[in-house]
């Protein structure tokens, strides 16, 4: 059962390498098969692993498989190892399953793209990194995956880099994530410093070692989560990330990567249960984000932007869940959200595909009759996300709301905010549905003279795109049935399945009172939230179907509020003014004043000084050394000139000189002897 575990992440890695290196020389069909086949292989293996886990008794459902020691020195050992437990197997199934569907969908969506192979290579690479993230048995391996998905996110957001905005959006996502990752890395380092190991199992066993620092570590890790999972204050990259191809938005920015923060906190539950402060911060940030992003979503006109804010809002719910200690509920919502949000994004991609690249919902309308499959699946996903009883979103969201209300870390204020957010969710999602699919088509492009064969050029997407939609729609409906709470007669299987992974806080999530006395309250709260949702749907119906003049009037009536929402609370502008511009100013100061002015001046001064010294040295060289040498030469020349007069060519003269010399020598010799 454990022999093939390494294949799960490496299959997509193989596909990525092939597609990125030689994909452009291969036929498109082969590229698609390779990309989808590898991820499908991962999914099949994950499913086999899942059933293998299910066959084990509950207590033994942890596989810790080490492949080799990655870093090993002076008592520190970090292995390249996988931890397969109920938590990571759910993540693996979601990543590989939803990922496979989106890969298939991409075949249709990206069919005409000139960088087809590169796209699939990146998508495979992302799947590889995400699987490493969820399978790693220690924080360092998780960090590798964490950075890997960040890289793929950047690559895919900026995939159509010909347009400058897309490239900038990619960079923005990367830089904002960098801030979060910095916090995450600091948290990991602190945990290593105080805990002495990075293995999840080892840390969970000795959690008392780092208990004093738990709050700081938890908050630092949460900073990482806010970056990756787009929470306040680092959510600003996600709306811009919609610049990438739509399947990318579905896979990375809705279903998988952005949930990495939730997974991380759930995985580190043994740390967070030690620190109620950090938990409270997580919950408050989560619920604030949920409401905040929901209000922005109300007025956006770009179909993908609405879904982006919806994603931020739903991620807020997940953080509310893990923040009140309902880790299983958070992961449950993560899973259902992966289904319906991926479906919504793919549906929006289908709409964009069918209308010839239109993203502005003001130019859509009436698409219901042209794109039936897209419409129905989109509607199912909308019902699921709004929390209509019986569909997946209802169970997971209400589980979170109930835990937010009832658990020890919870508070009724959190519940109220959550329910308000749920109402907002229903409102903006149904606005989207009504404006996009109902009424008359409002795009001049499709109306009038250029319409052919009576359907205005708007067409349903090909089968390769609609089948994943249908599969995801089925999952959106039934995905919640594994977590039906007791009060509704279910068994809450998923929570029981995940219990071993969250063993550290059993005492926290279990309400002090027994289930029976609380059941009435739970039902009541559910009913309240459902009523709120239905009321929101009715408002959406009234505003966008019955009285289409009203929204405009309301907007004109409260221009201040409308503009505030339309411009996303000016957060981007505030960041730009407060942080980016100041940083740029600081950088300019550093660059022009400090660097160019002072440091370069010092360097240049050294240079000039050296030139001066060299000049002096050269002058000395020329004057004295060369002078001495030349003088020697001159002296030799002059003396030679003087002496060569003696060379008469007359033999006898020479002899006479020689004899005279001998004579002189003899005289000297005699004098020396005598003295």
């Amino acid at each position, binding site marked *: 059962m454990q022999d093939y575990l390494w294949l799960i992440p490496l299959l997509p890695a193989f596909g990525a390498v092939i597609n990125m290196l030689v994909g452009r020389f291969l036929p498109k069909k082969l590229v698609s098969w390779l990309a989808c086949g590898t991820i499908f292989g991962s999914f099949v293996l994950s499913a086999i692993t899942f059933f293998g886990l299910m066959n084990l008794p509950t207590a033994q459902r942890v596989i810790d498989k080490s492949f080799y020691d990655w870093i090993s020195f002076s008592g520190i050992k970090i292995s390249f190892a996988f931890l397969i437990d109920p938590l990571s197997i759910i993540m693996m199934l979601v990543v590989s399953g939803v990922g496979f569907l989106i890969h298939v969908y991409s075949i249709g969506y990206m069919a005409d793209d000139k960088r087809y192979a590169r796209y699939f290579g990146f998508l495979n690479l992302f799947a590889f990194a995400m699987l490493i993230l969820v399978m790693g048995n220690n924080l360092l391996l998780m960090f590798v995956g964490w950075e890997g998905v960040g890289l793929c996110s950047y690559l895919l957001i900026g995939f159509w880099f010909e347009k400058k905005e897309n490239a900038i959006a990619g960079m923005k996502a990367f830089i904002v994530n960098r801030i979060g990752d910095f916090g995450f890395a600091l948290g990991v380092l602190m945990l290593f410093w105080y805990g002495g190991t990075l293995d999840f199992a080892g840390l969970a066993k000795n959690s008392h070692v780092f208990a004093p620092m738990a709050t700081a570590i938890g908050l630092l890790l949460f900073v990482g989560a806010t970056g990756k999972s787009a929470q306040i204050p680092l959510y600003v990259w996600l709306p811009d990330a919609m610049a990438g191809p739509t399947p990318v938005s579905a896979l990375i920015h809705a279903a998988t990567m952005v949930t990495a923060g939730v997974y991380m906190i759930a995985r580190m539950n043994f740390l967070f249960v030690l620190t109620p402060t950090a938990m409270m911060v997580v919950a408050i940030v989560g619920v604030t984000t949920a409401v905040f992003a929901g209000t922005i979503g109300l007025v956006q006109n770009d179909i993908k932007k609405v879904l982006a804010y919806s994603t931020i809002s739903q991620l807020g719910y997940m953080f509310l869940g893990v923040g009140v200690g309902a880790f299983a509920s958070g992961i449950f919502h993560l899973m259902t959200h992966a289904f319906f949000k991926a479906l919504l994004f793919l549906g929006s991609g289908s709409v964009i595909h069918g209308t010839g690249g239109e993203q502005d919902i003001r130019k859509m309308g009436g698409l219901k009759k042209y794109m039936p499959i897209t419409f129905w699946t989109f509607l199912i996903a909308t019902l699921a996300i709004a929390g209509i009883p019986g569909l997946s979103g209802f169970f997971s969201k209400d589980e979170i709301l109930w835990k937010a209300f009832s658990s020890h870390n919870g508070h009724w204020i959190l519940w109220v905010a959550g329910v308000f957010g749920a109402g907002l969710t229903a409102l903006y999602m149904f606005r989207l549905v009504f404006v996009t699919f109902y009424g008359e088509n409002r795009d001049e492009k499709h109306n009038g003279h250029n319409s052919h064969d009576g359907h205005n050029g708007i067409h349903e997407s090909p089968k390769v795109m609609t089948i994943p939609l249908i599969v995801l729609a089925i999952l959106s409906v039934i995905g919640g049935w594994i977590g039906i709470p007791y009060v509704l007669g279910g068994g809450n299987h998923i929570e029981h399945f995940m219990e071993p992974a969250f063993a550290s806080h059993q005492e926290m999530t279990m309400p002090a009172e027994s289930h029976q006395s609380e059941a009435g309250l739970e039902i009541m709260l559910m009913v309240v939230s459902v009523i709120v949702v239905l009321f929101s749907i009715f408002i959406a119906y009234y505003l966008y179907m019955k009285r289409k003049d009203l929204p405009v009037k309301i907007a004109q009536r409260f221009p201040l509020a409308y503009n505030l929402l339309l411009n996303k609370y000016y957060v981007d502008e505030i960041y730009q003014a407060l942080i980016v511009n100041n940083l740029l100013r600081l950088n300019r100061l550093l660059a022009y004043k400090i660097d160019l002015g002072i440091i370069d001046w010092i360097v240049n001064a050294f240079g000039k000084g050296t030139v001066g010294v060299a000049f002096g040295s050269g002058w000395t060289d020329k004057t004295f050394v060369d002078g001495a040498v030349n003088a020697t030469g001159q002296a030799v020349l002059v003396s030679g000139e003087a002496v060569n007069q003696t*060379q008469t060519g007359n*033999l006898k003269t020479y002899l006479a000189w020689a004899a005279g010399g001998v004579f002189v020598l003899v005289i000297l010799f005699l004098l020396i002897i005598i003295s």
Partner: protein
Amino acid sequence: MTLLQAYPLQHYLIIGAILFALGLYIVLTRKNAVAILMGIELILNSTNINFVAFARYTANNISGQVFAIFVIILAAAEAAVAFAIILNIYRNLKSVDVDKADDLKH
């Protein structure tokens, strides 16, 4: 009264010195190359007398005599070479006057 006692070493040396001075005088004063060569022969012979005398009076071996024989042989060889040079000078200059052979002057 042996020969050695009757004629001490100095007599031989004086003879050698006189011969040497004569040879040098000839070398320095004659113009004729052959005469100069004769002067050189005198100088060589004077040194031979010195060698033999010193050998006989001071050393107790015959290295002086051997050296003298070497000098005689060398003088013969030198004379042969010198005559060849002189012959060439004559062919070039139509004379054996060494003052005419001044091509080596500066």
